[in-house]
């Protein structure tokens, strides 16, 4: 990218800590003055990305440019960025004034200019008259304000914020969100904001970058990300959603829950398996009538302040979450309608598990770093490279980890209306995808077993 519109060009960055790949070919281009939020669950690499931008971490591969200048190997103190840390990181031995003046004093700015700028920064964060206070005597919110003032006084080109509001209580967090947004407007500098709070990301950002497992999943405006998620992970992570297996019958017609619906999506081809996302507020629910598209029985109904959140079990066994201003009684039969424009169709990321493996002998194949018993394969000497396919529902998970051929832990759970789609991470850091009706919890340690009949082996 040679476009000079970009203040940050973060190209093809990879970073590993030992065996673990934290950032996998991440690219990100940020326009001047944008408010960009990097959103993802803990351990997705978002903080590592921010630390690399600040200069606290090196990269294994890739290049970072700020304002067109290559800063990949520039130390943190020479970068035109400043950081607001999650735990404030104020200097405890200095008072509020000296904390804020720290950067300017290093730059040998004249004392009277420092004073006017410190007062201006304090005013900006609403902390006038606090300059001689001991920072240890301030509340969390006040400390964070000082930390922001300390960063913005240096007039950086980019302000990096690492979950700055995570340690504050809800009310304070909401207030600070609004103040940050105002500050971004009046300062006109680029903000890179890291958070795991999707609501915060939707509220604040011009652009959201959704990350998972060291990869960028989607980059887009809050509306894009919410309305047009590219995959099941994004759909599940941002807001509430019903994610169901479906099949694109032809253009503008999709089948899910055993029914055919009209939709607006095209270009998937005929009979293509897809994931269907329906936001709970997009299902119209009404007392039983013949004009509904499908029927169901209300399973639960919870008051959420503005709306009611209900789960409805459809006639053919799918559980759907619905949000509506009207409450329907538990046990009541209801009818539902979904408008074509509210059905979001996504191409499936995968149809089954595909593992690269090696034949050990005629009845054993090594995949995922473990030897599995398979049906006898003819003409095998051992050592042949093979591709092994296993359907999602053919992988057995066991409570007792010793019972499995190998061990793993549950990393991601997606409810698909009538079953769960799990991502299980094995001991060797491979992902195994499992469809199951059993309920597992995040981070459960499980044993993994596959029957010989379910291993489909092809030579490569």
């Amino acid at each position, binding site marked *: 990218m040679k476009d000079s519109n970009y203040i940050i060009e973060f190209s093809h960055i990879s970073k590993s800590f030992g065996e673990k790949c934290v950032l996998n070919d991440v690219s990100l281009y940020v326009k001047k003055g944008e408010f960009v939020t990097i959103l993802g669950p803990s351990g997705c690499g978002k903080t590592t990305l921010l630390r690399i931008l600040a200069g606290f971490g090196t990269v294994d591969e890739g290049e970072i440019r700020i304002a067109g200048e290559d800063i990949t190997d520039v130390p*943190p*103190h020479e970068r035109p960025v400043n*950081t607001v840390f999650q735990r404030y990181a104020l*200097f405890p*031995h200095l008072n509020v004034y000296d904390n804020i003046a*720290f950067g300017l004093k290093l*730059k040998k700015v004249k004392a009277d200019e420092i004073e006017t700028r410190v007062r201006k920064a304090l005013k900006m964060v609403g902390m006038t008259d606090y300059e001689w206070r001991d920072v240890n005597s301030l509340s969390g919110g006040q400390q964070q304000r000082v930390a922001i003032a300390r*960063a913005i006084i240096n007039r950086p080109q980019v302000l990096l914020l690492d979950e700055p509001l995570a340690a504050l209580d809800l009310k304070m967090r909401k207030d600070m969100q609004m103040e940050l947004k105002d500050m971004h407007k009046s300062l006109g500098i680029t903000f890179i904001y890291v958070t795991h709070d999707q609501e915060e990301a939707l509220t604040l950002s011009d652009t959201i970058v959704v990350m998972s497992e060291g990869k960028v999943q989607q980059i887009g405006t809050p509306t894009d990300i919410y309305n047009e998620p590219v995959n099941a992970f994004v759909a599940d992570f941002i807001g509430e959603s019903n994610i169901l297996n479906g099949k694109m019958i032809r253009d503008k017609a999709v089948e899910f829950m055993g029914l055919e619906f009209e939709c607006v999506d095209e270009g998937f081809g005929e009979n293509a398996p897809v994931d269907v996302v329906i936001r709970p507020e997009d299902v119209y629910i009404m007392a039983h009538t013949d004009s509904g598209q499908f029927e169901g029985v209300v399973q639960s109904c919870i008051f959420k302040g503005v709306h009611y959140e209900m789960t409805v079990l459809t006639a053919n066994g799918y559980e759907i979450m619905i949000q509506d201003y009207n409450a329907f009684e538990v046990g009541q039969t209801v009818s539902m309608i979904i408008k074509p424009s509210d059905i979001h169709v996504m191409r499936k990321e995968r149809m089954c598990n595909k593992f690269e493996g090696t034949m050990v002998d005629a009845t054993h194949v090594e995949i995922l770093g473990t030897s599995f018993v398979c049906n006898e394969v003819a003409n095998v000497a051992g050592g042949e490279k093979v591709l092994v396919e296993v359907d999602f529902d053919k992988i057995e998970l066991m409570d007792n980890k010793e019972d499995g051929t190998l061990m793993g832990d549950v990393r991601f759970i997606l409810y698909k209306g009538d079953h769960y789609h799990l991502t299980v991470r094995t001991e060797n850091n491979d992902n195994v995808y499992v469809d199951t009706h059993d309920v597992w919890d995040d981070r459960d340690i499980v044993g993994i077993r596959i029957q010989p009949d379910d291993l489909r082996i092809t030579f490569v």
Partner: protein
Amino acid sequence: MKKFIAQSYLWLLLALLYAPIIIIAIFSFTEAKVLGNWTGFSTKLYTSLFQSGAHHSLVSAIENTLIIALISAVVSTVLGSVAAIGIDRLRGHKRTVLNTLNNIPMLNPDIITGISLFLLFVSLGISQGYMTVILAHITFCTPYVVLCVLPRLQQMNPNIFEAALDLGATPFQALRKVLIPEIKPGMISGFILAFTLSIDDFAVTIFTIGTEGLETLSTYIYADARKGGLTPELRPLSTIIFATVLLLLVVINIRAERNRRKEETLR
């Protein structure tokens, strides 16, 4: 009744602890050569202690002790603090190994440290004197400084060093303006500990002091006691040292209490 027993137990314990030093202090105010004889109140021992020439070897032993203690405390504070910063940066296995390596010299009996240093200096052909005593004292004081500084580093918010870099400080400026002020209390207590350990030491000193006539307070008293009877002037000297330490402790405690009150009123 129960309270009375508890109280008297406490006082008995304190009396046993302080009896020797109190007896010395009392008998420093009399002229008798032998400890235990009271020949009437007198401050003669105090004046003769400070009379020039009269007890030249004792005064020079005190001087030597203080100079050695000061130099070794300063050097070991610097070395120990740097080492602590290094250890704090390490993670996992390496950190455990280095921590253990730091603890071993402290647990090692002084006599072993003394003999091994003696053998080392002899085998390297270094003539023993001021230099070897100071080197030996730095050797056994440094681990204690590490032990004092390390907890301060662990309590510190790990981001504040990075925050300083982020605000434009070079790594050296960040060390000087942020890290050192943060660990200063640990460095001060490390320094005090090193200083007192050095003054106190006998076992290591006797092996490294050589035969050139250099004496520290502890080796002087040892030699003096073996000659038969202690010089009476040691009584006022002990009393003065004890009084100084007592005064220092009182001052430190009052300061700590004041700081605590100040912080409380701020909250």
